[in-house]
């Protein structure tokens, strides 16, 4: 009886984007970026945010030409059934690997830092269960809950930063621009691959949004990037050169919160932030994946394949990273290219196909006269 239909409004869309952008990055990025760009990581993030905003315009333009169609339907319409299907499959596997990798990484974080004696797969399974639960309830539910969770995340984040101000030292950031530009570009590329490229999954969600506009898309990306920027900056300022020894710098700075020697070691409260954002990234990735697969197979009820794909993702998550060296190598070198392909090249391909089709149809109209 709801007269909202199955659409989320612009505000919820913006919040979904910001929670998705923050996602896993807040845990992963400070360490990864520090490896390449050392204490100029914050510059790299700014460049990355700029690049991400540019790519968002591309995505939104593409969706505005075909307002009610998801990615799979657009590529099928523009590129024909077989080539379009191929492109969709490539994209869907990108998203599926997103789910898998994220399941592993979130499980790894909890396993290493909080509960070392539980097997990692237990956390992956739990995350997968609540992810399936959330997605089966529908996008509208995720949107409404995003408003509540975003408020929680913001409050905790501000609290964290406020409590860490006494421990920040500005000398940690100097000298600025000491690292070569090539490293900064590489680091911004890495940022883009984890927070900017995956935004292409929102092409599956845009058809379900009421009147999406540039403002909500860009603002969401900006807010998410701001979160990551502030976290990385705080990590650099608080930890300094010790950052290279920490696997999860953002968790380490939460450990450092110390109020009068009484309230110490309350890092779990801040782990709530990352838990929520990881959950939203997982849920949206998963939603895009099963929506895409069900559009590919022409199913109408997309929740029917949620269970098998979740199981496949969980099982694959135990396979993908045999050790941490492989993981770092993958995230620093291969994943940026993969993300770039799926997040930038494929949308550009579709846009070119759209323009070619428009030009060709104009020419045909002229000829027929």
């Amino acid at each position: 009886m709801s007269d909202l239909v199955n659409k989320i409004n612009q505000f919820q869309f913006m919040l979904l984007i910001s929670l998705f952008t923050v996602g896993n990055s807040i845990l992963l990025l400070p360490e990864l970026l520090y490896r390449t760009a050392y204490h100029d990581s914050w510059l790299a993030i700014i460049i990355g945010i700029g690049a991400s905003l540019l790519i968002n315009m591309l995505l939104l333009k593409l969706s505005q030409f075909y307002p009610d169609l998801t990615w799979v339907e657009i590529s099928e319409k523009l590129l024909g059934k077989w080539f379009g299907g191929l492109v969709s499959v490539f994209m869907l596997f990108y998203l599926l690997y997103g789910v898998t990798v994220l399941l592993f990484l979130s499980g790894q974080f909890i396993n290493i830092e909080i509960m070392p004696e539980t097997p990692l797969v237990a956390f992956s399974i739990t995350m997968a269960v609540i992810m399936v639960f959330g997605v089966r309830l529908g996008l509208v539910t995720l949107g409404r809950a995003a408003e509540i969770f975003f408020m929680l995340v913001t409050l905790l984040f501000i609290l964290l930063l406020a409590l860490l101000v006494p421990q920040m030292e500005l000398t940690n950031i100097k000298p600025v621009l000491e690292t070569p530009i090539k490293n900064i570009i590489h680091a911004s590329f890495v940022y883009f691959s984890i927070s900017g490229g995956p935004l292409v999954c929102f092409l599956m969600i845009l058809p379900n949004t009421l009147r999406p506009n540039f403002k909500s898309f860009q603002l969401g990306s900006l807010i998410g990037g701001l979160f990551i920027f502030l976290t990385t900056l705080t990590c650099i300022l608080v930890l300094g050169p010790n950052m290279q020894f920490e696997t999860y710098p953002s968790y380490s700075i939460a450990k450092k919160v110390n109020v009068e020697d009484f309230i110490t070691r309350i890092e779990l409260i801040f782990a709530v932030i990352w838990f929520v954002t990881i959950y939203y990234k997982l849920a949206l990735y998963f939603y895009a994946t099963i929506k895409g697969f069900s559009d590919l197979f022409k199913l109408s009820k997309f929740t029917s394949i949620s269970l098998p794909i979740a199981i496949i993702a969980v099982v694959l998550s135990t396979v993908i990273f045999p050790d941490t060296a492989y993981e770092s190598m993958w995230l620093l070198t291969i994943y940026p290219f993969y993300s770039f392909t799926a997040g930038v090249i494929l949308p550009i391909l579709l846009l070119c196909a759209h323009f070619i089709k428009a030009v060709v149809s104009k020419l045909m109209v002229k000829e027929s006269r």
Partner: protein
Amino acid sequence: MLSFEETNHDKLTADLSTNVQQIKAHLGNSSDVTIREFTVPINRGAVIVYLNNLVNKELVHSIMKSIFELLKTYSEKNTKINIPSLSYICKNLLVVSEPIIISELSELHNAILSGHTFLHFDGMAEGLAIDTAKIEKRNVTVPVSQNVIRGPQEAFTESSETNLSLIRKKIKNQNLWCESKFIGDISKTKIEVMFIKGIADEKIIHSILKRLDSIKIEGVFEGNYIEELIQDNNNTLFPTVYNTERPDVVAAALLEGRVSIIVDGTPFVLLAPALFTTFIQSAEDYYHKDYGFTRLLRFFAFFITLLSPSIFISLVTYHQEMLPTPLLINLASQRESTPFPAYIEALFLETVFELLREASIRMPKAIGSPISIVGALILGQSAVEAGLVSTGMVIVVALTAISGFTLPSVEIGIPIRILRFIFMGAAAVFGFFGVMAMIIVTILHLCHLESFGIPYMSPFAPFKLKSQKDNLIRMPWWRMHYKPDSYRRQYITEKKINTEEEYIKHRKESPS
């Protein structure tokens, strides 16, 4: 005896004795049915049937007298026709409510069982049913469940007429309309749906009436029977319909645009739709100048009662580093002598508390206080001294119980209690991570619910800034120009809306 399934469409016959036989057979010669045959001018047999304890006997007596007089004057005027038609009698009989002409036996049964008096003349195939109901009812007393310190102390009673009058007393507006239905195939309970036309959303009114019509149930004795049958099809424990015993709560809700359902036979009136914030708000917030402080406190108490056992279990079992060191040392020394892990202790104490709570509802008042002394002092204190549970755990469980009782509605306490056990299980297995996962699941579930089309977590979830004035805090009355519009779809504007067409036109023009 008549079967339950078929409605009997048998008609009354013109013959008096056959009718009397039929009525006696159907009602089984029940001892509280009075069938009195008498003669009216001129030499015509008549019978009057009523249920002893449901009618006002003086009124019946005066009706019989008036009938006698009426027929006498009629027969004096018209010598040819002996008896006037029934419609003539209807129009000229001096009773307050107009008599109804009955021709079918099922209507006859309905009438008699509602306290009407049935009058039948020999030679006519129809009869009259006159309203003479006087039913025993309780006086209006103080509310049992939802107490306030300052505010009206009237509560509804079991009679729906009294309840209607209590609401009418509070809202003297011509737009307060009510529609009545009879629900329950065997019990035929009277349900009244009250709403303020023009404030309540038409769609909600329409959907409530439609759902009430589609109820198929044998008997309705409490609002919950209806509540479970008309709520949105949610597989949920959370209530989406509010119930209250206080007329002032109902009146305020009607002004907000909600619809009230009064069930005859119970003092608890249903209010639909109901959102999550409804269950945390209390009538008293509006009667004190605390501007929402107690509301925030109750909201905080909601989280305490739901989460404290599980957070305590996860802290003590998995994340000991989060406690400040002096507290940790104390807790550790307490827990050293207890044999069970924290989860088993918590489970034990929570179960004992649930048993205590259930027992206290059923206890006769005479042995009430000794049992509470037994429960509180002996069980609590001695369990600690016997080494079964630790003191910290007793404190946590007591805190949970106290916060649970601050919530003004008992309905929301039920899912909280059940969820609390699930949270404790999740905390015992996965620690804080488990609690977080369950919190996400709970919030997602709450956001999924809808109460008659309105999202359950409004105004939190689809966040409306202006509605926050009356959500967790209460802005002073001189600031509240804007009424919360979760239920209402239009405001009473200066322009008076007189007809349905104007209202529809106004709704189309105003922003949704």
